[in-house]
């Protein structure tokens, strides 16, 4: 290095003032971008809030109702909640003589259904309170008063009250109002109802009630064409079955495929390696295929071609066709397999090579290394993919429509070979109805669906945390 001064160079950099000017414009550009990013968040939050508002707004509110038969007529004084069992039973026998027998059969009969009307009461009501002198009569030979006595003595008042409420007094919903409307414009709504009654457009005994559509009864009731009585039990059970069977099928297959692609697909053999990469690319593409296509595939293969399997015929179950929970789950498995495989592959790839080396270095075989080190370390990531897939399986509607989820199910699905309906299908059907009450129960079903989704995701996240904690020790 010589000690001579370096030659004076032409400087291409800005002087002090130009630098300051440039600096403020550089900062300004940053602030603009930051504003844009903030706007994105605000818009996303707004969309989410709008969704919640929309759903909650429809799921509760005022309804203008008319009792099919006013309570005062059914029971003296009209107070159902404090009526005695005797009063309730008498009302049932008076207004619904035949359903009264069904009520007895379903609640306290001790004999098979086909002997219910022919066997003597001593058998039918074995161990129950029987009206004096009626032991040898059949149920049809009882007088209405005796039937009422049997019910009052043997069936709990709550059951009787529920029956009177639903089946005798009943509710005709004439008008439905949204939650915000109900809260903010109650006076106007009341005035309108009064005016309509005056004008003869609404019957005189119309009354205004506040109703939460999402009740315990809504969750535990089956399908019904009456929105007041309709519930989501069958759809909820169908959805839970589909998700369980889907994950049970897709998880092992998806993780297995990922393990093979990542660990075994013969990287030393260029030809096999090429094929593995080709398969991988295709799996990635499959993740983007519209779900309706999977539905068509499921219809052609699982519902039609493999009907003997999916209907359960080869297991001796003959009462259904191929449109079963199994078909739906197989189709959903195909749909979510790419998601599970891709995420599992990435999780396996992310396991540090130092762990593998340590394991191999101690004399572990390939399988021991995969089973004892790679899979546990990859499990949080694998579960993330499974959660994503599971959420998708819960919400997908199109494939189920194509496969043929039934619209009317009156028997709860009880296994993979049952015909089914699912929550999204049920919601879709209800929203397609013109009456506002159905929109209200559709909104309630949406709340249940979202809650179910959150519950399942939360449990999967807890499981993932558990594996993560185990890794960190």
């Amino acid at each position, binding site marked *: 290095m010589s000690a001579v001064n370096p030659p004076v160079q032409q400087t291409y950099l800005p002087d002090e003032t130009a630098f300051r000017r440039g600096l403020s414009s550089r900062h300004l550009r940053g602030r603009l971008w930051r504003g844009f990013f903030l706007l994105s968040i605000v818009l996303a939050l707004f969309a989410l809030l709008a969704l919640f508002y929309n759903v909650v707004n429809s799921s509760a509110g005022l309804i203008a109702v008319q009792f099919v038969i006013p309570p005062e007529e059914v029971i003296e004084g009209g107070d159902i909640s404090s009526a005695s069992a005797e009063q309730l039973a008498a009302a049932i026998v008076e207004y619904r003589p035949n359903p009264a027998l069904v009520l007895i059969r379903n609640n306290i009969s001790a004999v098979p259904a086909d002997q219910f009307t022919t066997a003597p009461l001593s058998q039918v009501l074995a161990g129950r309170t029987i009206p004096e002198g009626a032991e040898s009569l059949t149920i049809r030979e009882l007088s209405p008063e005796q039937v009422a006595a049997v019910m009052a003595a043997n069936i709990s008042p709550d059951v009787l009250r529920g029956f009177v409420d639903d089946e005798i007094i009943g509710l005709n919903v004439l008008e439905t109002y949204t939650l915000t409307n109900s809260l903010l414009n109650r006076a106007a709504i009341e005035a309108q109802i009064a005016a309509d009654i005056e004008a003869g457009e609404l019957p005189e005994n119309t009354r205004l009630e506040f109703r939460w559509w999402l009740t315990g009864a809504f969750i535990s009731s089956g399908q019904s064409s009456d929105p007041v009585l309709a519930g989501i039990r069958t759809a909820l059970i169908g959805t839970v079955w589909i998700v369980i069977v889907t994950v049970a099928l897709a998880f092992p297959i998806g993780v297995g495929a990922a393990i093979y692609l990542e660990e075994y697909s013969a990287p030393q053999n260029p030809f096999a390696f090429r094929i593995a990469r080709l398969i991988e690319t295709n799996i990635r593409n499959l993740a983007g295929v519209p779900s309706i296509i999977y539905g068509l595939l499921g219809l052609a293969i699982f519902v039609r071609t493999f009907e003997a399997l999916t209907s359960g015929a080869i297991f001796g179950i003959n009462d259904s066709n191929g449109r079963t929970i199994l078909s739906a789950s197989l189709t959903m498995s195909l749909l979510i397999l790419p998601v599970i495989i891709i995420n599992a592959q990435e999780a396996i790839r992310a396991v540090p090579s130092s762990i593998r080396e*340590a*394991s*191999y*270095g*101690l*004399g572990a075989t390939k399988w021991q290394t995969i089973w004892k080190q790679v899979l546990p*370390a990859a499990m949080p990531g694998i579960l993330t993919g499974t959660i994503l897939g599971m959420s998708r399986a819960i919400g997908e509607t199109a494939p189920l429509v194509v496969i043929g989820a039934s619209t009317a199910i009156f028997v709860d699905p009880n296994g993979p070979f049952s015909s089914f309906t699912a929550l999204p299908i049920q919601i879709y059907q209800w929203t397609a109805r013109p009456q506002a009450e159905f929109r209200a129960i559709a909104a309630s079903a949406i709340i249940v669906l979202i809650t179910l989704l959150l519950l399942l995701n939360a449990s999967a996240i807890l499981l993932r945390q558990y594996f993560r904690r185990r*890794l*960190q*020790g």
Partner: protein
Amino acid sequence: MATAVQQSAHAFELKNVNIYYGSKMAVNDVTLSIPRQKITAFIGPSGCGKSTVLRSLNRMNDLILGARVEGGVFFNTQDLYQETVDPVEVRRRIGMVFQKPNPFPKSIYDNIAYGPRLLGVRSKNALDEIVENSLKGSYLWDEVKTDLKKSGLALSGGQQQRLCIARTIAVQPEVILMDEPCSALDPIATQAIEELMRDLVKQFTIVIVTHNMQQAQRVSDFTAFYSIRKNEAGDGKENRWGILAEYAPTERLFSAPASEETERYIRGEFG
């Protein structure tokens, strides 16, 4: 790999070994004998292939895509690269400690019991004894005996490396390969490992790769100095590969190096 019938004086014999990554040659023509129950150090500048040679001794290179070994690598007179040799058995007899401490994300106990369990040891008593002896053998027992359930990752760097050594000796290998075991550690932890090595060599053959010439001088009995050769590849790039430049007892290599290159390296003029 049958147990060696003829016990040669040397644990390893390398004969004209070339190692390639894909089509690129990484190490050329290494011939050397590594004596039993001594510490042999591999030193040399970055990229000279010392780690590559080390990893060829227990077939760890098999895990690297495209790695290929030519020539003869003999362990107890058995060619390790013969088709009939199962690399799993090789690695069970020739353990390895890595540059970065890499305990499993498990408890201290499970880290050490891992190897014996792989081999099918299930009895709790036997595992307890192995864990205790291995930890004592790596000077770690007194520090961790009260919390064997604690995660191996919760230990300090030096403790983690001694845990990895304990894990290695738990399967009773014949050889321990160490790939720059102290490069991620502070001087105190390094000293502990060096003392441990002097103790371990009474039972095991040790081969260590190190960047640190003082370390090689302090702990090793024999030292192999690797260097780099290069030539012009056609398109203006360079081909570089490693060679074994000099191999001698440590004292002689450092006091009276045979070649000028070795002398310049141990004086710290390059590398």
